């Protein structure tokens, strides 16, 4: 399948996937990236920094996730450790419900009996 169609599919899911990972435990950018690559099978095996980090930034600006800065022992820099805000928890629930309906609807079309 052409890359542009794959990207369109993935675009819709990333926010929900990131919120879901952050809901499981407080985590930081590189760990999130690695988890997506590990758990995402062949679909997300090559998830990139240029995709994931901007979404984390946008989710923060939207008030769905928050962070605390933790000094990084290895190199003297800092890491942002993310967690969901109250709004983020609500949004994740709404997204999950929508996803279930969306899945059923699209499956219906694919089977030709919507």
């Amino acid at each position, binding site marked *: 399948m052409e890359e542009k169609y794959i990207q369109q599919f993935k675009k819709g899911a990333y926010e929900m996937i990131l919120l879901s990972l952050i809901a499981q435990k407080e985590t*930081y*950018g*590189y760990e999130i990236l690695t988890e997506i690559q590990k758990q995402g099978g062949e679909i997300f095996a090559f998830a*990139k*920094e*240029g*995709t994931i*980090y*901007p979404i984390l*930034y*946008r989710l923060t*600006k939207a008030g769905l996730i928050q962070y605390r800065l933790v000094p*990084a022992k*290895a*190199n003297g*820099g*800092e*890491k*942002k450790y993310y967690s969901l805000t109250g709004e983020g928890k609500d949004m994740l629930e709404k997204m999950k419900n929508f996803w279930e309906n969306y899945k059923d609807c699209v499956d219906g079309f694919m089977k030709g009996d919507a």
Partner: protein
Amino acid sequence: MNRETYIRKVKKQLDCSVKEKEEIVRDLQEIFDSGKEHGKSESQIIKQLGKPQAYAQALGCGRQTMPLSGKRKVAVVFLAVGGLFCLYALGESLRFRMPKNAIGGGDAMTMIVLQNSSPVNSSEIFGGLAVICMVALVFLLRKKKK
């Protein structure tokens, strides 16, 4: 391109507050530090981040238009100066335009000799050039479609 150059290029593409720019730069430092911790080279990380303009756009803070390239900047300056000069010259030529009935109204021969006998009026030339300069300027400075 190295880490600092990449970060500088992204910063140039950002259209947001100073505080937000600082946060984005901090985030990029963290991305490079984390990548380095896990054995990635700067060029590998840069490849994973994508082009600076695309990264800035993905954040939601990208500039609407590209900054003017060097050549374009020079062209804009020339056209602006040229256009202003033409407008000035147009104004001057209109000020010194001879009245319609200046010739032929006298009772006797005069010693006035017309020096400019070109078929085209200088006002029209300067006016036309000024219009061309302004149109070209608008064309060069137009916002590119996203």
